[in-house]
């Protein structure tokens, strides 16, 4: 995790530096804001990793970890099949198309997304 954290922090520092350099050289506001927003996004992720993941002790981070160190119940928690993603994508596509073709289609898509959201919660339990 430390390398991931360093990656986001260094990327954020780079983004801040280039935003400042760009403003000083170009005095152009759109580009400066874009670079600034990019820095904010990176700072957000780095901040999240500091707050939520700094205590993580991953076997993948240890040079000398044995394969058996990773054995256990956690490995077997992956979903291998779910009909929800394709229906969700269809519903979202209906919303998008509905915005330019028919408000009814967009409405149906929005309702479907809400229903599917409930299914996601149920399936995750």
């Amino acid at each position: 995790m430390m390398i991931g954290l360093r990656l986001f922090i260094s990327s954020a520092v780079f983004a801040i530096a280039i935003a400042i350099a760009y403003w000083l050289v170009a005095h152009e506001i759109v580009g400066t804001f874009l670079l600034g927003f990019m820095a904010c996004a990176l700072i957000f992720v780095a901040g999240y990793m500091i707050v939520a993941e700094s205590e993580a002790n991953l076997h993948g981070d240890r040079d000398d970890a044995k394969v058996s160190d990773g054995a256990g119940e956690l490995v077997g928690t992956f979903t291998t099949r779910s009909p929800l993603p394709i229906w969700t994508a269809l519903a979202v596509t209906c919303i998008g198309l509905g915005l330019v073709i028919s408000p009814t289609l967009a409405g149906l898509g929005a309702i479907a997304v809400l229903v599917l959201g409930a299914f996601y919660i149920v399936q995750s339990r």
Partner: protein
Amino acid sequence: MSAAAAPVAAPPRNDLLGWITSTDHKRIGILYLTTSLGYFFIAGALALVIRTQLAHPNATVVSAHAYAQLFTLHGTAMIFLFVAPFALGLANFLIPLQIGAPDMAFPRLNALSYWLFLFGGLVIFAGAATNEGAAATGWTAYAPLSAIKVSTGLGQDMWIIGVFLVSVATILTSINFITTVFIYRAPGMTMWRIPIFTWEMVATSLLVFMAFPALAADLLLLFVDRHLGGHAFDPAHGGNAILWQHLFWFFGHPEVYVMILPYFGVISEIIPVFSRKPIFGYTGLVISAFAIAGLSMGVWAHHMFTTGAVNNPFFSFVSFLIAVPTGVKFFNWIATMWRGSISFQTPMLFSIGFLMNFLLGGITGVMVASPPIDFQAQDSYFVVAHMHYVLGGGSLFAIFAALFFWWPKMFGVKLYEGLGTWCFWLLFVGFNVTFFPMHLLGLEGMPRRVFTYADQGQLPALNMIATLGSYVMLAGVLVFAWNVVASTLKREPVGADPWRANSLEWWTTSPPPEHNFDTLPAIRSERPVFDAHHPDVAARTPR
């Protein structure tokens, strides 16, 4: 994970329902790959119509409006639906295998990303069935050309919706990749031991995370302008048409690297295997990937030199800088081959083709990064040649290298070497015959995106040569398709590691089981499979 930790009880369903409900990263990867190849065939067919129209001056194969739709759909499909998504498919299949994970971090999100990508692409193409046809504003959809007053058709709206869906899918996939690599590495698979391809995908995902939101925002603003009375890009009401270009290229130039960094990873995996040497400069390759990613965020306005609205020296300088880490990569690849025991099998042929074509595209890239040259080359066929050498000669050749290299792992059979060699030479010759003359066309003054041209100078001859080359490329693609059919029908199974390769995906069976690994070797370097097969060499190698 241990040998006893196989997590899946039921065997996977092989019927249609099994595929469309699957959240297995390998199946989603294969769906991505086949879908993006499908879009590639469509986009390639459109390109052939374009080249046929341009074979002779004043030709009337298609009308001007149809031609505008053709190059818009061709560019959109190649960029949004083929080159970048193919890398996502490859990464979907490979990343968990390369880091020793049983699946992606968010399997359902992974499936959702794929279906959004598929439907987004279909929506874009469905625009062609509307009254005024598909979008006809180029893949860049510049405002005010894409404004409702000029582009009145529903096709343009469907283009906006479709590209938006694809961009959301790409962002979701990238978050999935980053999380998977950071969290789900096997014991001992430290970040400095993950394969270069996976590293390149981390850099690519970071780029997507930084750049694609700008595209999504740009599309939303355009939609608001077109349908909800907005004026973001309308100078008559206080808007700014240049804003579209800023937002678009803030995404658009990093997108070029989203389309090339994964393929740098592909080449970095293939060259060591067929040179029988470890990769030269592992750390340098990783650092250069992130240097390219970082610098690419600061070059967007080199596409806007001629607008007069940007600081040309700043963007020119940063654009030149990108050549440095790219040069580091070239040095590493050549040093890996140096004094290696090189075998010229099909993946290696395509990799060397990649190096040659991409080098030319890179050199012309440095040329047009200079504003005085760019002012001459802007919107000419010189730029068309440059971008096709980068994305066609570069990415496309790496895509074929990847297909030939990882095909045995995905499907358990090898593609035929003889047909592979024919495929390579037809594509290599066809590609260069098609696109090299375009440099000369650009220097002769032929503008891009015109549906015909005057019968003067070298234009007819050069255009005819380019068109003939495109049909040679078609022959190469057909040979590849025949190779797929023939090798699938013959079905000669291969073992887990037919290339004697290095990284972890070659440890498991071909194709891998649903849970990926029954056993894992000890991971003590970036070449765990090589170490397991050659413990004597591994013991002597300093870590």
